[in-house]
Structure formats: structure tokens, C-alpha cells
């Protein structure tokens, strides 16, 4: 009888390397290189942030109290960045969280228990999540907590360090579990074929929501912004501020504004984890049972009338057969191929990010406060 631990190790390694939709980002399937490049890119981003933050805090002439409250915006920014990175990772790994049809065909014939496959998949997801969190915080996480400890002692520095990493882990888990819950519920409610169709649109919506929230979040991480009654409704909808509250509470802050935010963070994290894990487990086992025989994305059956109207419009717009063929091929590829749709979304997302960065300036005004332009006079 095969050794389950050995099977777990083999499957864990394979699932981990296939966590991100590799056929999407690398047609040649150079998995190890690609994952190292991903991690290096995130670590480089962390390095640039640390390069900016460390000298700014180390040379600041502000009084300690002002420096600490000025650091809130950076703390919130780092939390929001971690959440955005984990969110993007979850979107890229969207189709890898459940077994695909190929997995079911290949592994379904082998003497491997469902439990072993499930555990290997879960461990691979956890590891990939941990790696992305670690990579994006590697330099900031090793420097920033020591720059702004609430208690000015060695114990304070260690506490700040622990608070930082616990908060980042919690924030990352919240985003990932929330998206896992959406994915799991969709997979559980719909048939495999319908799930694939709907899931592509949910994936796109999640992608744009993450970018939108990240770029449009207003700068509320100030003593006045957090205490102001008119901001409370908005704060209850912005997860990065809940986890800022959690970070401050773990760090020993007595500010009452952080108490409520930290409470929200803990409750909503627990809900997201519970719903995410339950929905995922249910969807996983449903998928294992039914996914084998279900077809992949297939064209929607359209009525004869719709076909005629579509044909008429395409004929009018594109008179030459070659133009018509190119247009129809492109449209059908984007409509039916998840990979092409996600690729298009990534390019669209880059454009959206640039547009949102300018929109934010317009919304808050060029002289208004941004996450990164206060705290250092």
C-alpha cells in the first residue's frame, strides 16, 4: 500500500508549483523560475519601501508623540499593500484552489486518498499565501516595527515586531479567506460548468475591487480622521483600518478609536475564516465527486433570433471575411477562455490602477491628504 506521507509530499510540491495559473503567465511552464521571480519582485517592492521609511523615521526631528501618530498612515499603507498583494495572489490562484478536471482525471486513477489530496492542496495554498506575505513584508517587516515601538524599550521593540507580523498574517488571511468564501460558495451553489462561467466574472470583479479599494482608500489614519463621527461608517467598510486598529492594540495602544477597529478586525477575520474554510471544504468535496464528468466552459446556447442579429451586426461592421474571422475569433476567445479573460483583466487592471491614481488626486484635490504625504514636516 502506498505511503500516505510520501504521497502528500509529492502532491504538495506539485500543487505548490501550480498554485498560480502558470499556463497564463508562462506558456513554457518554467515554474520554479517564475515563482522565484514573483517573490523577488515583491521583495524588491518591500526593499524600496524600507529604503524610503527607515531614513525618514531615523532622521525625523518630530516629537515622539507626533512621530507615532504620523506613522499610522504608513502602517495602514503597509497593511493595505499586504492585503492587496494577497488579494491579487488569490485572484491569480483562483482556479488552482480547487482541483481542475485534469487533476481529477490524473489523480482519480491513482491509489491516493481524497484526504491526502485535500491536505496537500490546503498545505500548498497555505505555503503560497505565507510566501507572498513574507516576500512583500520581508524588508519592511524587519525594519519598520523597530522604528515605531509604542514602548521605548527592547521589550517594546519585540512586541512591535510580533504585532506587525501577526497583523499582516491576519490581514492576509482575511482577504484570502473572504475570496475563498466567494469562490467556494459559487462552486457549491452552481454546477461545475456554470461555476466556471460565473467564476471568471467574479474573478474579474474581485480583481478590480481590490485595485479600486487599494487606490481609492482615503487617508483617514490620523487622530482626527479616526475619531471623526462622519468617518465611522466609511471606516467600518475599509478592512485596512480594522487591521491598523488590531496592530495598534497588539502594540499596546490605549487610543479608544483602535479598540473598536481591532474588535471589527477580529470578528470579521473569524467570520471570513469560518465561512471561507467551510465553503471551500464543501465545494472541494462536491467538485471531487462531480467535476470528473462535467464539461469545461462551453458556448451558451443562443436562440436563432439572437444568432441572426449577431450575424447581421458583425456582417455590417466587418464587410471583409478576414476581418470578420479575426473579430469573431477574438470575441469568442475572450468569452470562452478563462486564461485570456484574466490576461485581458491584468492589462485592464494596470490601466485602471493608473487611472485611479489620478482619480484619487482629483477626488481629494492635489493639496489634500494622501496615505503617504503626511507625518513628516
Amino acid at each position, binding site marked *: 500500500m*502506498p505511503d500516505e506521507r510520501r504521497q502528500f509530499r*509529492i502532491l504538495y510540491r*506539485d500543487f505548490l508549483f*501550480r498554485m498560480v495559473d502558470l499556463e497564463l503567465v508562462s506558456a*513554457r511552464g518554467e*515554474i520554479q523560475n517564475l515563482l522565484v521571480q514573483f517573490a523577488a519582485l515583491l521583495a524588491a517592492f518591500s526593499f524600496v519601501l524600507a529604503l524610503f521609511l527607515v531614513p525618514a523615521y531615523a532622521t525625523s526631528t518630530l516629537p515622539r508623540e507626533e512621530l507615532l501618530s504620523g506613522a499610522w498612515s504608513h502602517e495602514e499603507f503597509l497593511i493595505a499593500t499586504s492585503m492587496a498583494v494577497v488579494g491579487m495572489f488569490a485572484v491569480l490562484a483562483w482556479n488552482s484552489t480547487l482541483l481542475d478536471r485534469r487533476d481529477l*482525471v490524473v489523480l482519480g*486513477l491513482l*491509489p491516493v486518498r481524497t484526504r491526502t489530496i485535500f491536505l496537500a492542496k490546503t498545505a500548498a495554498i497555505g505555503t503560497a499565501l505565507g510566501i507572498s506575505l513574507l516576500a512583500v513584508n520581508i524588508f519592511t517587516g524587519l525594519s519598520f516595527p523597530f522604528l515605531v515601538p509604542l514602548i521605548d524599550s527592547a521589550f517594546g521593540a519585540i512586541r512591535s515586531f510580533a504585532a506587525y507580523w501577526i497583523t499582516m498574517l491576519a490581514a492576509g488571511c482575511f482577504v484570502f479567506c473572504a475570496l475563498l468564501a466567494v469562490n467556494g460558495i459559487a462552486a457549491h451553489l452552481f454546477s461545475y460548468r456554470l461555476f466556471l462561467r460565473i467564476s471568471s466574472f467574479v474573478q474579474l470583479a474581485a480583481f478590480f475591487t481590490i485595485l479600486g479599494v487599494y487606490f481609492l482608500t482615503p487617508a483617514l489614519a490620523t487622530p482626527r480622521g479616526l475619531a471623526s463621527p462622519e468617518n465611522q461608517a466609511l471606516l467600518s467598510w475599509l478592512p485596512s483600518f480594522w487591521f491598523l486598529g488590531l496592530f495598534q492594540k497588539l502594540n499596546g495602544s490605549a487610543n479608544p478609536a483602535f479598540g473598536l477597529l481591532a474588535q471589527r478586525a477580529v470578528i470579521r477575520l473569524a467570520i471570513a475564516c469560518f465561512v471561507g474554510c467551510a465553503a471551500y471544504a464543501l465545494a472541494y468535496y462536491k467538485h471531487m465527486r462531480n467535476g470528473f464528468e462535467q464539461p469545461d466552459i462551453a458556448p451558451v446556447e443562443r436562440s436563432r433570433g439572437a444568432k441572426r442579429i449577431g450575424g447581421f451586426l458583425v456582417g455590417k461592421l466587418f464587410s471583409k471575411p478576414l476581418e470578420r474571422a479575426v473579430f469573431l475569433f477574438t470575441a469568442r476567445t475572450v468569452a470562452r477562455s478563462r486564461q485570456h479573460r484574466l490576461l485581458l483583466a491584468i492589462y485592464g487592471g494596470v490601466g485602471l490602477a493608473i487611472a485611479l491614481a489620478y482619480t484619487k488626486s482629483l477626488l481629494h484635490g492635489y493639496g489634500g491628504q494622501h496615505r503617504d504625504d503626511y507625518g513628516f514636516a
Partner: protein
Amino acid sequence: MNRAREKSYFAASRFERNRIAHRQRLGYVPEEPHLYPHLTGAEYLEMVGQLRGLPDRHVTEKSDGFLRLFGLYEDRFVPISSYSKGMRQKVLLAAALLHNPEIILLDEPFSGLDVNSALVLRSLIRELAGRGKVILFSSHELDIVERVSSHIVILHKGRVVANDSIEQLRTLMSLPTLEEIFSQLALEQDTKAITEEIVNLIEL
């Protein structure tokens, strides 16, 4: 095969109760070559061998041997995404036979194979059957079926319309070939008329 007969086939390890033991005894070549395209042929066989619990030494020895005999040794470090359909089919065959299964299910195993490999497979099926393996072989290529099978089941619209040895079927139906037996039992269309319509459509 009805439920009672299925149970008798797999009586040694109750199918419903011990799927793992059942899968351990089974080698299956599916019709569609679903493989992990990012792995190389050697890596895929290594993974399958390890998941089947074969000792590492055997895995290497057997996978190298299969790759050499199937003419894939030169391409063993090339990702499967670059393999042709025939090469993928050979990887599937090797993966199905790696653990010396007692029961072998072959669903259109000749699909995509070159002439040499098809001849080898045909001979291999006979040899394995001669050594006591149970081989269930599904194909639409009737001449191959006729050459390699000792017992034939013809399915038509999900129902068994013939279930006997090839000699017995020939005698019963008074027909010389399996193709003619099949035409008699399962063909409902006028092949000649359809052919003419297709030609007319081509020449339109």
C-alpha cells in the same frame, strides 16, 4: 457488465469498500491524454510511480525502460506540453503499466500512435493477455479489435447488442468480419447515401 459480475471480478478487494486497493490493481489509459503539461515525460512517470508507492529504484528503472522502448528517451526532459498526441499516448501507456497491474483498461489506445508503436502495442496486448492479465479494450477501429480481442462486447445506444467470442459471433451471424457483424447489429444509417450527400456538399 452487470453489478453482480463486476463484484465477482473485484471480489478480492471489495470495490466499494477499498477503492485504493482496487486502483492499485488497475492500469487505465483514458481516451483523452490528460497529463500535466508542465512536467517532462520522465517527471510524470516518476510522479505516478511514487504516488503508486513503487520504490524509487524501480520507478527510475521502469520509467527509463518504458521511455526507451516507446522511443521517448531522447525527449524525456522535454515538457509534455511540447509532445505530440502519439507521444502523450505513449506516456499514458507507460504510466498505466508502470505498476504491473492485474486489470488493464484501454480506451482507444491506438489513437495518435505511429505505425511501429501501434504494432508494438498490438503485440503487447496479446502478450499481456497471454500472461493472465485482464485487458478491457475499447475501440472503434474494428479491424484492430478483431485482431487482438478474444471476447467482444458491442454496445449500441448504451445497450449490449452482442457479447461473445469473435468466432462464435462469426458463426452465429454467418458473417466473415467484425465490420459486417457490427453493421448488421448497430448501424442504422445508409452509409452510401450519406457519403453521396457529403460529396455533393463538397462540390457545392
